[in-house]
């Protein structure tokens, strides 16, 4: 959960990039790391296998604009996408404030997308979190590849809860859509914290 520190004037949020194996979660973080100015980021830490597949998580701390004199610090994590790493995926979700679900737009990845989304819901439930409380956005990645599903179809398959969420087309390796996605989820978690603080100040 987010933490507000009045002594250091900092607010921390944890954002997790979730999705099936090889959908582009790490590519999102790599692009953010490349694009954010040096003073506003830490190192990109990757716990990966020899084949560059995420083994545990990637981690990137980045600072956003100040809000009311507070520095907002976003800690970006990815999870390992491969099915058999579910235990580690669940661990990374602990204390999450916002989620980016990265879907692979290729037709032959639809089943994996749906299964990963369902797996996310199950893993959130382990912490008694749900999509009603945790802000999330969808990112339809790999829009530059030739055999991809239209956005309408991806929306039909993945964005079908009563409350539709924001979704973004992306080519993460080139940076297209990466910051649109990050800015949207950042706004949503800030808004969520604001709502919580208002509710707390009323009690």
């Amino acid at each position, binding site marked *: 959960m987010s933490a507000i520190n*009045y002594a250091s004037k900092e607010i921390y949020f944890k954002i997790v990039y979730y999705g099936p194996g090889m959908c582009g979660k790490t590519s999102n973080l790599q692009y953010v790391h490349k694009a954010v100015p040096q003073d506003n980021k830490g190192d990109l830490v990757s716990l990966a296998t020899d084949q560059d597949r995420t083994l545990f998580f990637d981690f990137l701390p980045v600072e956003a604009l100040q*809000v009311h004199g507070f520095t907002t610090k976003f800690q970006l994590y990815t999870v390992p996408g491969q099915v058999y790493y579910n235990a580690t995926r669940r*661990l990374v979700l*602990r204390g999450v404030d916002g989620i980016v679900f990265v879907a692979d737009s290729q037709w032959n990845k639809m089943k994996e997308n749906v299964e990963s989304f369902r797996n996310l819901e199950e893993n959130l439930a382990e912490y008694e979190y749900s999509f009603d409380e945790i802000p999330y956005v969808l990112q339809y990645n790999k829009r530059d590849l030739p055999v991809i599903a239209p956005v309408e179809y991806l929306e039909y398959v993945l964005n079908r809860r009563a409350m539709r969420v924001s979704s973004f087309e992306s080519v993460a390796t080139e940076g297209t859509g990466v910051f649109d996605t990050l800015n949207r989820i950042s706004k949503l978690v800030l808004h969520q914290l604001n709502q919580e*603080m208002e509710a707390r100040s009323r009690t």
Partner: protein
Amino acid sequence: MAGYSLVLFEQDVEQINVALDVFLRETDAKCVLVLDKGGHLLAVRGVTDAMDASSLSALAAGAFASTREIARLIGEPEFSVLFHQGRREHIHVSLVDEERLLMAIFDDRTTIGLIRLYAKDTEEEIARLFGEIRRQRDRGARALKDLNQGTAETPFPPS
């Protein structure tokens, strides 16, 4: 239930720092950190110049979470201590309460025995302080009203 955000005021941080300073004085550890199990750094004291405390917290929380799963697999509810011995630097991570961890980094100027001894006292004191903070969780929101209105459309503007 997604849980409550943690709000730390100046006086909370001061009290936590006092407890951490006592630990450093008694043990001669290089530095000591309080982090939550989600990987957020909550407080740090001591010499940290060459260290990236944020990454350290994220990785230590990950390592601790991973050993917890290992514990479950062998029928233990949780391991309460994690110790990594290096050639010169060593790390001791221990459980403070349900949500938080204490991490000490030390070298051969002190001993693991001394670290364990004083870590226990410090864990109890930190747990007590966070218990107080949790009991008063309805405070806050002092300067954070209209947080979203105060934010630009793009928290991460293009460089």
